[in-house]
């Protein structure tokens, strides 16, 4: 039996909706493509998983007044080569807008205000000094004092306390068999499976794969007792053990 035309209309094959998304914005502050690519490479190296195939908005307003114009086409290809997916531009000149449209990129209206803040980064700006880094599971038997920082490439096991004002980071799990009063950041390169185990939770801050919670947001019931912390649906879950 042939399908009646009006039946086809009852089940629409498409629908327009409006959603609000959070998307990284790449602020361009230099017109030298070489410099931009070089610095971008360094940033991406710090958190490769976080940026892989990430959509990206390119903001050009800082260089709009520059005499020398940036070759937008070349910039977009360079960004794509680094594994990112630029989807649109803003703050562009008329010429750049044309280029963008030719490359099937969206041209977004200029934006001022809150969007100009640099992205909140709980990124490990892997510091060079006062930081001990090891390649294998790291074991620490001495108290970690205020102001000390520890970075473990894999798991980190601390048999003593972590003082207020100390910071321990691991790309994997963190186990603390003493009191945790400082900051503990697990999965700092984006491993959302990483966990924090701790014998006595009094932390200033806990974080897994960039999702963090500060002391003020800790439930009174979770404080001062043995807990494990993991990430579920982008939320930190604290369970007693």
């Amino acid at each position, binding site marked *: 039996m042939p399908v009646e035309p009006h039946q086809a209309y009852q089940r629409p094959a498409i629908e327009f909706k409006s959603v609000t998304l959070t998307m990284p914005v790449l602020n361009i502050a230099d017109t030298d493509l070489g410099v931009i690519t070089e610095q971008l490479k360094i940033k991406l190296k710090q958190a490769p998983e976080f940026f892989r195939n990430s959509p990206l908005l390119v903001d050009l307003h800082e260089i709009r007044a520059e005499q020398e114009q940036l070759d937008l086409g070349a910039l977009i290809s360079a960004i794509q080569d680094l594994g990112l997916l630029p989807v649109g531009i803003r703050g562009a000149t008329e010429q750049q807008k044309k280029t963008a449209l030719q490359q099937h990129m969206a041209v977004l209206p200029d934006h001022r205000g809150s969007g100009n803040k640099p992205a909140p980064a709980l990124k490990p700006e892997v510091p060079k000094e*006062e930081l001990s880094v090891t390649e294998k599971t790291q074991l620490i038997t*001495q108290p*970690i004092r*205020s102001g000390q920082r520890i970075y473990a490439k894999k798991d980190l096991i601390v048999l003593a306390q972590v003082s207020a*004002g100390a910071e321990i980071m691991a790309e994997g799990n963190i186990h603390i068999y003493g009191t945790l009063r400082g900051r503990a950041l697990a999965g700092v390169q984006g491993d959302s499976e990483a966990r924090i185990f701790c014998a006595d939770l009094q932390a200033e801050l806990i974080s897994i794969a960039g999702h963090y919670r500060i002391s003020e947001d800790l439930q009174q019931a979770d404080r001062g007792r043995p807990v494990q912390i993991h990430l579920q649906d982008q939320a930190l879950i604290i369970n007693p053990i």
Partner: protein
Amino acid sequence: MARIIVVTSGKGGVGKTTTSAAIAMGLAKKGHRTAVIDFDVGLRNLDLIMGCERRVVYDFINVINEEATLNQALIRDKRCNQLYILPASQTRDKEALTKEGVGRVLDELSKTFKYIVCDSPAGIERGANLAMYYADDAFVVTNPEVSSVRDSDRMLGILASKSRRAEKGEEPIKEYLLLTRYSPERVKLGEMLSVEDVQDILSLHLLGVIPESKSVLTASNAGIPIILDEKSDAGQAYSDLVARYLGEDRPLRFVDEKKSLLGRLFRV
């Protein structure tokens, strides 16, 4: 070979210089040849507390710069002939201290002295770093309040990572906690951290508790190390502390509230 002790804290005004003067005098009175060095270049105080400010000719910086010999700069204490003071320079600043220079002076002192007490300046900058760099033992002076405890914790981190022993991978500096200006009455009222609270945060071997005492200020003003005031609580507490450091077993005193006369009468 001498044992080098640094008296440090991070925070200022907690009693480092008072402690340095007291323990140096205490060690010397026990018959050990002791030198005490003021590392607070530019804010020279130790000579006042030791009561030898009128006998300063040359100082630590003169010795480092080889403008004077160590023997010319060392001041012998008038009360105890085993004790010598090496004053800081008042006209220079901490930049005048060099790692090599300090090392050279300490090496030379080590040949003839049993104990060298380094009175560290406050802060975590050059002066404090050089005072602790060559140390074997650290006396971390802490007041029973949160900011002092936090600063001591920071200092302990520096002791564990930036000293010569740490850099050379040797046995770490032995760290001792000295709780000063302790008032059991205020602890009871909940106005002050208790000994247990501080030990819980710092997890450190407690060498002694010095009670808050008016006699400390009186002694400082008179240029007499408080340990010589045998009648005062603080003086006795420092004597206990020195004895404990030398391996004697002394019970902890002055950590409980003093009983008033009425309290004693009604004690069951």
